[in-house]
């Protein structure tokens, strides 16, 4: 509980008021500016001047100076005093009478009309502080009479009072308060709201007035505070609705007032102070013989029977700081936010932010990180305040100094953790997440370098995965501060990234190369070498500097620098010639690069193709010259050479042929080259006679003619057949017997397999006489079938063409001509005989005549006329 929200300060001491007269009691008070009026039980009004004195220590006290006192002459206690300062009048209730006295002289004001400025039979009255009538020189007053069930509304002028309205009530009212048109009344058994203008009433709640004084206190515009059963302070507005939760007083409250955000209540021995914001009891002050509690223009004044006190609110900030000091964060914030209406907006925002930040640090100190984060966020904390708690995290160059007065009590993290490493670790983890979230938001504006550098240090220290993400993305880490830190934790790879993001690619590479070479230890990336190669792929200037290192380390991988360059606009392509000449001393890499150029990028340059072919050839030759020869390697190397020789049309074949002229092991390659040079006879000669590789010979024919027409292919196959049939080359008699048979068999196979390519007639002409029909049966069968097939196909084609022609003629006729009718009754125009057959000839103009007549006529006519139309009609 206990917040110190108020201080009780004596205002008028007992001596000053009554000296030694023991039986004088204070009955009522009124305060108007510095003027304090007091009514006593012996019918006096006392007038004091109350001055506020602030001591050098900031302590407030009051000095009261008695100005005047005046006996009213009624011998009854002064029950009520109200100032109407605009009229310079005090409205006095004494002995059931309301009348006016002068504020300065305290003389009773004589009525203008002669003695009429009095209202008799009054039990209570109230002043309307929010009158609907706007006249500043009159005061509206609600009056309760002793015997009548009604409320009277009077207007009080300087020298008269005027009854303006009377409203009746269901029961005798005993207390009243008014705001606008709304009267809030305590009746004998209940409270009610009554609109004196319309007469509309609204019951509030029942109340037992026996033995207890009701409280009806206006606390603001159309809002009242009422003493409710069960010791409650209830709020009610003019509509009869409670908009605030009630506060829990004691049963015997005498007076109450609101001094935002507190409700102050007085009972016999205590002043209780509740917050309207959370309904909690905040402070209790002991106060004996309490008698009156009233607020005047925001000043709460209390009186016992003998003395007067002022309840001075402590400055809001102090209250809040007190709450924070006792770690009551929620309450402090409720109080701050509740005071929003009472503080200028800009000032409130500053205060509110600061309180939120302090609250955040309190939660942080208790390791309530979630809550702390929320407060920091809401309070827009300068992140560096938090970072500065952690030793060494802020860069040396940072201009940050902690805010003053400090937001928290911690010197640094070690102070906070009291040496508990577990706590330190948790705090660090929190900062990591917090900074991670904050760095991309507005909160990091203006201190991005500090934030990112701190984050980098934390990541490095905690061996956090996100270190690389941080450095690889856009960041503001300070190089000077980060380098030693990263070196300390051996984060060389990360350091390289940092160099890179600072535009020092060269430094990054130097560092990485040292790691890759094992000079420095950093296991961040096991594939650092590949990473460097990747990096070089997309760099321009550094390629030439570090390619040598990369190629020496692993030529196959290193060559990726040149072969795997991404196609980007900002990255100009390297000139292949430069690369080739650069790679001169790295033969393996050169080979790979040329392969890349030829096979992947399909560069159409004779030089490159020839170069690659030569390199392939050299490799094959060097493998062949080794002993023992590795057959597998050789065949793989030859495979590559052969495929290049076959696929490419650009290399200089004669040059290559010259290079392998003397090599009897590369016959296949030579054959291919001969094929490229269109020296098919030589090629086939090699294949058939030297290699005796008939399938290859066949394959050669197919390959060499692959992009040519069928005649060229036929010619090649005939050539091959010729080579087979020509028999043995001279000078090899020994092999003739067996070899000749082989060749013949190859020829037969060739014919039987590729019969369709050959011109059968030419084949039959060259075949030896002695071959059996059976041997060539498949070939011949296919040839005959093909021939017959061809014959029939052409017949069909002919027939189809014919019918198409007929069809077209028919269509044409239909389009051009009407039908021509021929009947037995019609006569031929030439011979004038009738028609007996449907076959007629039409002369131009659609005239039908006998066929024989026309023939006759054509024969007879000197000029041979063409018949344009001939058709059958039925």
């Amino acid at each position, binding site marked *: 509980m206990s917040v110190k929200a108020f201080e009780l300060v004596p205002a008028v001491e007992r001596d000053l008021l009554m000296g030694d007269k023991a039986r004088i009691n204070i009955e009522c008070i009124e305060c108007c500016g510095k003027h304090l009026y007091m009514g006593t039980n012996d019918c006096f009004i006392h007038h004091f001047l109350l001055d506020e004195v602030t001591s050098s220590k900031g302590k407030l006290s009051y000095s009261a100076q008695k100005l005047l006192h005046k006996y009213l002459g009624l011998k009854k206690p002064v029950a009520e005093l109200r100032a109407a300062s605009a009229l310079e009048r005090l409205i006095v209730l004494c002995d059931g009478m309301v009348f006016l006295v002068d504020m300065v002289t305290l003389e009773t004001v004589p009525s203008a009309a002669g003695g009429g400025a009095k209202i008799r039979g009054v039990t209570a009255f109230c002043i309307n502080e929010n009158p609907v009538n706007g006249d500043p020189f009159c005061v509206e007053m609600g009056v309760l009479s002793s015997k009548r069930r009604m409320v009277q509304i009077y207007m009080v002028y300087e020298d008269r009072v005027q009854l303006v309205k009377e409203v009746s009530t269901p029961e005798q009212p005993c207390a009243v308060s008014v705001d606008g048109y709304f009267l809030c009344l305590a009746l004998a058994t209940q409270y009610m709201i009554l609109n004196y203008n319309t007469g509309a009433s609204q019951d509030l709640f029942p109340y037992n007035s026996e033995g207890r004084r009701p409280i009806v206190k206006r606390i603001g515009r159309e809002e009242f505070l009422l003493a409710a059963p069960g010791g409650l302070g209830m709020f009610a507005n003019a509509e009869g609705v409670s908009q*605030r939760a009630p506060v829990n007083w004691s049963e015997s409250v005498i007076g109450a007032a609101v001094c935002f955000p507190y409700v102050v209540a007085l009972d016999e021995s205590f002043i209780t102070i509740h917050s309207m914001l959370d309904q909690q009891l905040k402070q209790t002050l002991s106060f004996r013989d309490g008698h009156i509690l009233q607020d005047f223009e925001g000043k709460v004044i209390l009186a016992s029977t003998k003395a007067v006190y002022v309840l001075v609110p402590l400055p809001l900030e102090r209250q809040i700081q007190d709450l924070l000091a006792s770690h009551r964060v929620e309450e402090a914030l409720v109080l701050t936010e509740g005071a929003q209406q009472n503080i200028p907006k800009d000032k409130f925002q500053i205060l509110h932010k600061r309180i939120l930040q302090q609250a955040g640090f309190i939660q942080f100190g208790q390791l309530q990180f979630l809550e702390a984060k929320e407060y920091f966020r809401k309070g827009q904390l300068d992140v560096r305040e938090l970072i500065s708690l952690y030793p060494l995290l802020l860069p040396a160059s940072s201009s940050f100094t902690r805010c003053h007065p400090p937001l928290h009590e911690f010197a640094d993290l070690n102070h906070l953790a009291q040496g508990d490493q577990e706590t330190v670790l948790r705090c660090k983890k929190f900062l990591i997440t917090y900074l991670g979230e904050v760095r991309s938001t507005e909160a990091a504006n203006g201190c991005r370098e500090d934030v990112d550098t701190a984050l980098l240090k934390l990541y490095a220290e905690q061996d956090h995965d996100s270190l690389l993400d941080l450095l690889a993305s856009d960041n503001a880490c300070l190089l000077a501060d980060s380098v030693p830190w990263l070196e300390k934790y051996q984060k060389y790879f990360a350091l390289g990234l940092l160099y890179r993001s600072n535009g020092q690619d060269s430094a990054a590479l130097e560092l990485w190369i040292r790691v890759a070479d094992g000079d420095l230890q950093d296991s961040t990336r096991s594939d650092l070498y590949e990473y460097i190669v990747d990096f070089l792929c997309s760099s321009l200037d550094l390629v030439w500097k570090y390619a040598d290192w990369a190629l020496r380390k692993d030529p196959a991988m290193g060559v990726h620098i040149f072969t795997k360059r991404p196609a980007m606009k900002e990255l100009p392509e390297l000139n292949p010639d430069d690369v080739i000449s650069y790679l001169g001393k790295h033969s393996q890499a050169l080979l790979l690069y040329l392969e890349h150029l030829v096979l992947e990028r399909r560069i159409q340059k004779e030089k490159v193709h020839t170069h690659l072919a030569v390199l392939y050839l050299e490799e094959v030759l060097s493998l062949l010259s080794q002993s023992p020869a590795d057959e597998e390697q050789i065949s793989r190397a030859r495979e590559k050479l052969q495929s290049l020789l076959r696929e490419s049309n650009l290399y200089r074949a004669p040059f290559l042929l010259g290079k392998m002229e003397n090599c009897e092991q590369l016959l296949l390659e030579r054959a291919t080259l001969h094929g490229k040079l269109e020296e098919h006879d030589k090629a086939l000669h090699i294949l058939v006679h030297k290699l005796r590789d008939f399938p290859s010979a066949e394959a050669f024919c197919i390959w060499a003619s692959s992009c040519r027409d069928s005649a060229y292919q036929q010619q090649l196959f005939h050539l091959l057949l010729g080579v087979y049939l020509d028999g043995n080359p001279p000078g090899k008699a020994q092999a003739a017997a067996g070899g000749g048979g082989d060749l013949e068999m190859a020829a037969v196979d060739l014919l039987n397999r590729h019969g369709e390519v050959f011109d059968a007639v030419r084949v039959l002409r060259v075949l030896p006489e002695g071959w059996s029909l059976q041997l060539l049966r498949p070939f011949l069968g296919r040839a005959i079938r093909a021939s017959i097939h061809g014959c029939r196909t052409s017949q069909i084609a002919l027939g189809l063409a014919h019918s198409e022609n007929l069809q077209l003629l028919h269509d044409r006729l239909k389009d051009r001509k009407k039908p021509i009718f021929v009947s037995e009754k019609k006569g031929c125009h030439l011979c004038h005989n009738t028609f007996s057959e449907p076959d007629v000839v039409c002369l131009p103009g659609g005239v039908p005549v006998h066929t024989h007549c026309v023939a006759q006529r054509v024969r007879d006519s000197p000029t041979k006329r063409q018949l344009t139309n001939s058709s059958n009609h039925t």
Partner: protein
Amino acid sequence: MPEVSKMKKPDVKVVLLGDMNVGKTSLLHRYTERRFKDTISTVGGAFFLKQWGPYNISIWDTAGREQFHGLGSMYCRGAAAVILTYDVTNWQSLAELEERFLSLTDTANHDCIYALVGNKADLTDPKAQLSPDSDVASEECEESGCPTPPASPASLSGMTLHKQVTPEDAAALYGRILRYKGLEEKSSLPAEKLCFETSAKTGYNVDTLFEALFDLVLPCILRKRNENQESPTVDLEECRGTSNKRTRSACC
């Protein structure tokens, strides 16, 4: 309760009524703070401002004690919904609703919605012992010992109490409430929609209750906002809000 302090103008009011010890405060706690905790007998009343989407709904928790009975009609004044709460293990608590509390609702809006809620269902109904976030809830209960609802310790020993009020009883009362209000049963919301059995202790049905009720008062909120828009009174709070927004958008 920092939410309260912001003093936003509530759009609509919901009031919890019912005899003492039926668990009104616990229901509200369960809904607003997602947990069940010890409560002391409510003095006078308390209220909570719930931010429900773009709307502010004030929920009033009233005191069930006879002593504060007179205040009830004040709380109910202008209410858009009243939650009449009883204890399923206590027949009298249902009877009290009809005898004492129903008349308090005379001051509520003419189209006020009445919900009948039988709390402490966990004591009689095994399915109410399982809650959406049950593990936390049960732990807490064992720690706290739950002094307020006197019947609660029974459930700790795994025993179920005799259920004194059935849903049919509640539905019948709902019908009588409609009659009391002079409402046609056919044109009003059916009893199935407005009779709930809940457990503030386990959280069973609590969210369902409040969310369903908020959905039902939505037309009331919209109508009220509409009226406010038409009224010539200038809401300074609102103006400040909008002008803020404007300046903000202007500088972007």
